[in-house]
């Protein structure tokens, strides 16, 4: 691994010559950053390509076309991310905007599906018999937990499928 070299400001005094070794170290410093040398500055997540809400790239698929369902009539914990059909989610790694799309509805009766951002509902829809496609474009910040939660109002079960997180740029904004 290429070692990172810290340069004193005095090396770059106006009019002073830059030594070949200093220039070489400056070149190698770029390499050491990309290699993650222990003493090199780390790349901030904000420096990565920001996601932009759109449909070009699917960053994450939480549920496919088969989907899942729930007969529960109450939402689980706001931050629950691993109950397919009832509560699915992800954590934001890079700030920007994303598009969340899903189909929801019931076999019969009504359901309710909401999008939670760090524990607060930003959108809630009522599902009816069959499937309806919903879309939320969302401004996201690093570290936020986003969940898509589904519950049954009456009869049921409450179904959800094709839960996608999308962007116009391919990146690793969410996980």
């Amino acid at each position, binding site marked *: 691994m290429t070692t990172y070299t810290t340069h004193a400001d005095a090396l770059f005094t106006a009019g002073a010559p830059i030594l070949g070794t200093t220039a070489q170290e400056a070149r190698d410093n770029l390499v050491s950053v990309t290699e993650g040398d222990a003493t090199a500055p780390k790349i901030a997540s904000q420096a990565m390509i920001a996601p932009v809400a759109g449909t070009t790239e699917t960053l994450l698929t939480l549920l496919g076309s088969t989907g899942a369902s729930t007969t529960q009539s109450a939402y689980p914990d706001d931050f629950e991310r691993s109950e397919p059909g009832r509560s699915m989610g992800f954590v934001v790694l890079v700030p920007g905007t994303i598009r969340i799309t899903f189909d929801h509805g019931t076999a019969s009766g009504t359901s309710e599906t909401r999008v939670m951002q760090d524990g607060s509902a930003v*959108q809630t829809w009522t599902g009816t018999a069959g499937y*309806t496609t919903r879309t939320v474009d*969302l*401004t996201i*910040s690093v570290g936020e937990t986003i969940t898509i939660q589904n519950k049954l109002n009456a009869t049921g079960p409450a179904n959800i499928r094709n839960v996608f997180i999308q962007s116009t740029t391919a990146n690793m904004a969410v996980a």
Partner: protein
Amino acid sequence: MYQKIEYVDEARTKVRCYQSESHVRIVSNKDALAWEQLHSGAFGEIGDYTPLPKPKFADILASWRSSASCDILQLQDAAVDNGFFDDAENLASSGPIKWRIRWESRAGCFVTREMAAPFFKELHKRAKVKKRFDAWFDDLVAWQPEKPME
């Protein structure tokens, strides 16, 4: 451009922009440029935050009671254990009675309490006489899904 715009929360940190009934854009105050655009009036006045009406627990419970199901054998057993059908043997062997109880033949059959079957009609009738109401039925057997908590 938007059908409607409104604040998402009471603290006014987010705005919900309806592109259609099924497509919304949520703009946070952390997105300075979009936030400024929305507040410039270019998209119209931003509506006040309107909290979702919280469903009443009684409605949730009524909904659950209408859809929860259980194994009918468990229900029949529980009814007998609670003294509801002390005359079950006589009734089962009396041919003309429509709600004749066929315990074994119903194995694996899941039912809701709203079923109009003769057995349920009789069970409800007897429960009424014994002053056993909905809350008592809630705890009688293992309903699926579980009873919602307030």
